[in-house]
């Protein structure tokens, strides 16, 4: 008997997500968002998702909100750094009351996932006392123990997690590129550990198992379902592989800001062009300009 591979296609993996689920998404700001999967989820016209992304989220979250798939966001922030201080669909939907925001910061975001991974009913955290977080989230309470203030943080447990990374083997061992960020992980592992359901990793490239097993200390997540999706973080970047496409971010931000100011056409056009009309990887590559990814590629060190 031989060991089963854990590889599947993008649509097949996207079909594991259902309306109303708590969906974890990798990414920090511009880095490592699972955008190919996000576009596939939007094409499935999912509804009422709770998105756990970040801790500081970016376009993966904003696009899902803008496409109407989201009812709640668990995030420390949704922003595009210097391109746009507040992500546009997030801003519009929140201001209109169309989404709920579980207001936290990066520590509390991580802590809520840790509480889930560790099976704890809540965790008492010394940070954040005196802030508005407890007043904005009914399930974040300020409590005292021995005269000291703590925030009582409940677990946040995704039903399913999608992440994007540089590479994986066919058995679901996922890892970052060696060339950059030096082993720094973002939220991939935290989300995977907290999940009650499957962890799906889109990767730039499936590599030989022997290669992955030769450096097990580099593996971030094991037991994932693996989808090969080169360029799958675009317009985000992938640590050590390619840089974020800030021009594309500006295009998206412009469309989002136009809609926020009353003109829905550019945003609808964005969705048609890059999401609904780009079901196949070739279509997406053509939409962004054939050799765009080549231009963004990081030189090997």
């Amino acid at each position, binding site marked *: 008997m031989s060991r089963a591979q854990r590889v599947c296609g993008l649509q097949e993996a996207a079909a594991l997500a259902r309306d109303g689920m708590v969906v974890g998404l990798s990414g920090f700001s511009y880095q490592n968002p699972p955008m190919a999967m996000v576009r596939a989820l939007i094409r499935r016209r999912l509804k009422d998702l709770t998105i756990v992304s970040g801790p500081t989220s970016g376009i993966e979250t904003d696009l899902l909100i803008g496409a109407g798939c989201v009812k709640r966001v668990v995030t420390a922030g949704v922003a595009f750094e*210097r391109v746009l201080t507040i992500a546009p669909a997030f801003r519009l939907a929140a201001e209109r009351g169309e989404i709920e925001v579980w*207001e936290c910061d990066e520590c509390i975001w991580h802590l809520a996932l840790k509480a889930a991974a560790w099976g704890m009913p809540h965790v008492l955290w*010394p940070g954040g006392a005196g802030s508005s977080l407890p007043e904005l989230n009914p399930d974040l309470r300020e409590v005292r123990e021995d005269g000291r203030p703590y925030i009582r943080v409940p677990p946040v447990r995704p039903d399913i997690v999608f992440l994007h990374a540089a590479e994986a083997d066919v058995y679901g061992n996922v890892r970052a590129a060696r060339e950059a960020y030096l082993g720094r992980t973002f939220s991939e592992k935290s989300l995977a550990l907290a999940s009650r359901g499957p962890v799906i990793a889109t990767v730039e490239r499936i590599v030989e198992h022997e290669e992955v097993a030769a450096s097990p200390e580099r593996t971030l997540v094991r037991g994932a379902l693996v989808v090969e999706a080169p360029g799958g973080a675009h317009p985000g970047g992938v640590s050590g592989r390619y840089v974020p496409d800030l021009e594309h971010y500006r295009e998206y931000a412009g469309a989002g800001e136009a809609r926020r100011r009353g003109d829905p056409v550019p945003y609808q056009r964005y969705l048609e062009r890059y999401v609904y009309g780009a079901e196949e990887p070739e279509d997406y590559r053509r939409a962004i300009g054939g050799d765009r990814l080549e231009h963004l590629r990081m030189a090997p060190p």
Partner: protein
Amino acid sequence: MSGGGDVGGLRQRGGGSGRLDSRGRGGPRPGPLEVARLLTCVVARELMDGEIVAFGLHAELLLAAALLAQKLHAPNLSIRHGLRVERGADLQPAAWTSERAGRSHERVEYLESHDAILDVASPASPMRFCDVFFVGGLQIDREGSTNLIGIKGKDGRMKVRGPGSIGTTSIGTLARHVILFSGEHTARRFVDRVDYVSVPGWRHRAAAGLAGGPSLCVTPLAVFEFADGWMRLRSVHPHAAEDDVRRRTGFALPAGPVPVTAPPTPAEKTALEVIDPFDRLAAVDLAPDGGEP
């Protein structure tokens, strides 16, 4: 780890006027580079030898200030830029975003995995995240509370949704020293009371049972300090007029004479030439008026 140091106005960045339009008390109107360098010196003077200073990504001015302090009086200052402990002598392109500087990782001496922020948040640990933490906000109030969450409308509901508190709240609560930094100095930014609290100031901390509060607030026009937990002017920059600063601050400040911020010393100027040979500080987003027309 985002320190919020770069969260500025509510507008799209890059397109604004970014001009320094306040009158100086004397001398010619300074350019953006000169103002950025002055602020770099102001911040550097606050950093002590042996401390760990932390700020978010995209905070060139704060990084330059830390490098300046290292060079001049704090050789054992550790620099946390995001979750990296950095070394190196000069200001280089940002490490992880659109710049293609593949060698930026050579400037990293130590790094944490992202969730390790929990491990190092306690200021009592030898592996603590920081001693000094820089925080910004959409709103900053007289007691030093910051707000990145949102701005209320007249009906008391959230009118402007902010980006979120990103990495500021917990570390801003726990750090030994919090210094506020704002690239904008307007009555919209400096309000009597913030609409929501991302990082608590003196009274919000006291109400929660915590001692202390932010120690300083640096803007392109002035430096505030705190007395009895309320902001007051510590100095006004040479290119700014005190009455203009008061007018641009959305709450009353104690009267009385205010000194002029000490300009860069010759030693600081020389060191700045080494730290920023390509004048990258000129591009730092300092728009005292928020960049509005």
